[in-house]
């Protein structure tokens, strides 16, 4: 069991106020279904899709409505499900018995017709490709900056901060690309730190439900837990401020989801983290993966694509919980290897990064709040390799970095002590001794057992401006296992045809953006998009 910095704050909270336990949760009851849809569309402050599978979906909202209707025609919704009230003042309507890879329309409140934007497509049957032959996955990391201001509701709160509008611009970049490209996204993956500054409900409203409102009505959101999902601790002393004056998010080292403290810890007893009330992530393999028994980590299938969301923030901080998660992952990936063409894994803490403040090498930071970077690398990378995971995506570092197609850079393999950057040897660890994976360079990767690409995409809501607390500044965005970005300088300005020199090149980009993945029968293509939808990096893994 971990010992927690948060304990002190929790104790103070308990001393000064009545002790609180878990937040109250209304038990789920089986939904009743009928075929009568009458009424009008109800307003909801948040509306999103969860656990979307080939045959079922949960429509979830916050509002007064107590039912939802669904059908294959927008003008004639035929199935009504009475909602269940769930934790965090949400309502859920689960529709089952749906047809795979089919378009549905839905209303909230029982209306017989669906608003034009309330439509989704079910997943293709597990193990079978989609009808259009492609699965498009949009990935944003550390995208929660739009919720940052909402922590401070005082009259003197500033109207904007340094990151206002960044997440929205990144979203628009993706939208511009997909519009020009003619294909919409099929799902949205969030890499943690989804709602700054402390992952509270107001943060989530602004950073997730208001920012991605359009997407969330059409595709399922599959999140993972970041350090900023865990509330705050009193960090006043660390920065010379009067005690109780500065509460910092992102510093919890607890493995306990019930150790969440909202704000100004002295006045709040610990409670369950809002993330677990907001999201209805699978516990029992509801969307096709192996049952995990916890909402903190899970997996799902989407046709021939298998996606795993691990918990590097809580489960990873406790030895037994981490081992349990690893044992589950082993079973889950074994199952996926019998039916999936492509496997993608997400979690928050990157095993390989030279991002500002989050150096994955064995440094002082990785002894404490960033220890999951080391543990995930040395304990989970071998499992990724064993079962043919193709791409691992992380956030935490507010920049874009992407590795070679690589293997065996973790503690205990030949010639490797820690799995640090300096231990990377292209000839030993990288496919093609250092292929970039880029189609234009003729260096595409051929799918090969044991090789994985690790990408950091924590640039969905902000980008760091410098090396931060890294002790060796020149190491910033220069992890040896990461592919050089020769076409752009580190802030994303085009280098070719300009006077920029090689010295401006780094193995990463400090600009906002997101990642788009296209998976079809024979190819997995990954592209990094900037705020205008321009592709700044690309790699391809081919089965042929």
């Amino acid at each position: 069991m971990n010992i927690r910095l948060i304990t002190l704050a929790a104790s103070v909270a308990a001393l000064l106020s009545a002790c609180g336990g878990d937040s109250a949760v209304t038990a789920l009851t089986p939904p009743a279904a009928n075929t009568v849809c009458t009424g009008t569309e109800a307003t909801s402050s948040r509306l999103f899709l969860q656990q979307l599978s080939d045959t079922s979906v949960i429509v979830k909202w916050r509002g007064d409505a107590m039912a939802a209707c669904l059908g294959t025609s927008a003008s004639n919704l035929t199935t009504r499900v009475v909602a269940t009230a769930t934790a965090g003042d949400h309502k859920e309507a689960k529709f089952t018995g749906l047809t795979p890879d089919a378009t549905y329309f839905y209303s909230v409140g029982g209306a017989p017709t669906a608003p034009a934007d309330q439509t989704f497509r079910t997943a293709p049957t597990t193990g079978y490709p989609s009808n259009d032959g492609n699965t498009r996955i949009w990935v944003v990391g550390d995208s929660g900056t739009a919720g940052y201001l909402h922590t401070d509701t005082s009259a003197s709160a500033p109207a904007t901060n340094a990151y206002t509008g960044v997440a929205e611009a990144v979203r628009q970049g993706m939208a511009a690309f997909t519009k020009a490209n003619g294909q919409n996204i099929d799902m949205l993956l969030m890499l943690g730190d989804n709602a700054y500054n402390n992952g509270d409900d107001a943060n989530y409203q602004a950073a997730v439900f208001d920012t991605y409102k359009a997407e969330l009505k059409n595709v399922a959101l599959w999140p993972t837990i970041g350090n900023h999902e865990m509330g705050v601790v009193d960090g006043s002393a660390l920065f010379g401020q009067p005690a109780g004056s500065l509460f910092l998010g992102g510093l919890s080292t607890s493995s306990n989801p019930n150790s969440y403290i909202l704000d100004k810890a002295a006045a709040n007893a610990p409670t369950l983290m809002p993330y677990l009330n907001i999201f209805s992530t699978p516990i029992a393999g509801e969307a096709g993966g192996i049952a995990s028994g916890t909402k903190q980590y899970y997996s799902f299938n989407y046709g021939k694509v298998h996606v795993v969301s691990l918990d590097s923030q809580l489960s990873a901080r406790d030895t037994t919980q981490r081992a349990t998660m690893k044992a589950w992952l082993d079973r889950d990936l074994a199952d996926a290897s019998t039916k999936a063409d492509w496997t993608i894994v997400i979690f928050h803490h990157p095993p390989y990064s030279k991002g500002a403040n989050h150096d994955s090498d064995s440094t002082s930071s990785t002894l404490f709040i960033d220890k999951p970077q080391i543990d995930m690398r040395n304990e989970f990378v071998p499992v990724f390799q064993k079962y043919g995971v193709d791409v691992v995506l992380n956030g935490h570092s507010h920049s874009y970095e992407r590795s070679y197609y690589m293997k065996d850079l973790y503690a205990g393999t030949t010639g490797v002590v820690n799995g640090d950057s300096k231990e990377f040897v292209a000839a030993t660890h990288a496919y093609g001794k250092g292929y970039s994976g880029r189609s234009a360079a003729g260096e595409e990767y051929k799918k090969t057992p044991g090789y994985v690409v690790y990408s950091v995409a924590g640039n969905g809501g902000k980008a760091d401006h410098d090396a931060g607390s890294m002790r060796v500044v020149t190491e910033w965005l220069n992890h040896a296992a990461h592919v050089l970005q020769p076409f752009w300088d580190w802030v994303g300005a085009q280098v070719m045809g300009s006077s920029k020199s090689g010295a401006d090149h780094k193995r990463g980009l400090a600009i906002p953006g997101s990642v788009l993945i296209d998976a079809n029968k024979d190819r997995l293509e990954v592209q990094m998009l900037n705020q205008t939808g321009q592709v700044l990096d690309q790699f391809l893994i081919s089965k042929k």
Partner: protein
Amino acid sequence: MLKKYLCALGVSSAVGLALAHPGIHEQVDVLNEQLKTQATYQLYAQRAHLYFEGGHIDLALKDLNTASKMGPKEPLLFEYGNIYFVKAEYAKALKYFNQFIKFNNKYPEVYQARAKTLQKLGRTQEAIQDIKHSFKLQQTPHPGLYIEAAKLIYANRTSQFQPAVDLLDEGIARSGVQGQLQEKVIELLLENNKPALAAERMLLLGEERNYNVFWRSDYALLLVKTGRLSDAQNEFKRALRETMGIDSAPVFELRSKINQQLAQLK
């Protein structure tokens, strides 16, 4: 130092501090600087925690003692208990955990910590009660907590494994998921030479694991342990048939292992 962190954020407002995460050594450095000019209860308590995280137990204890002279001791009791647990002074650790529970009886982790301490003192039944109580305080206990509790109970067994199995079964019933808890049951049964029961438990896992070829191979291996060699052979053969047409390296590897098993069974 502060300026450096602020620069790392690219902002000058203290609001931005939350997006940076200095490491433990840097944090101790900062606290040391602060303590030179401002010796407060909170500074010592925070440095104590950092020292504990860094493994400097005696320094942590020293800071806790200093803090407890400057402010309320109650918030420090859990930390005291943890320190004495690490120092293997279990009776002292228990005293502090008991005191903390009088102060805050809704904190699941203190019951888990006290359970470990009680187990070290040989008071297994009380440890089990604490574990069960900690589960009641949580909405959805992590499966790893059940497994850790089962290990704790089993480690203190005389010749009994049933209490650990009962606890795991309770976790399965509560979550509705077999998963790693059932796998732990199987492990305990095998350790106690109960392969037939283990095989029965493996059958319960079949649906969750989609009766896939890996599960079937695991089941067949248990049948071998029970001496049901013909049944084991049939399951291995069925698994082998089911691997046909699957183009994946892990499945190729499994096929090779199954063939080895079948060769041994001939």
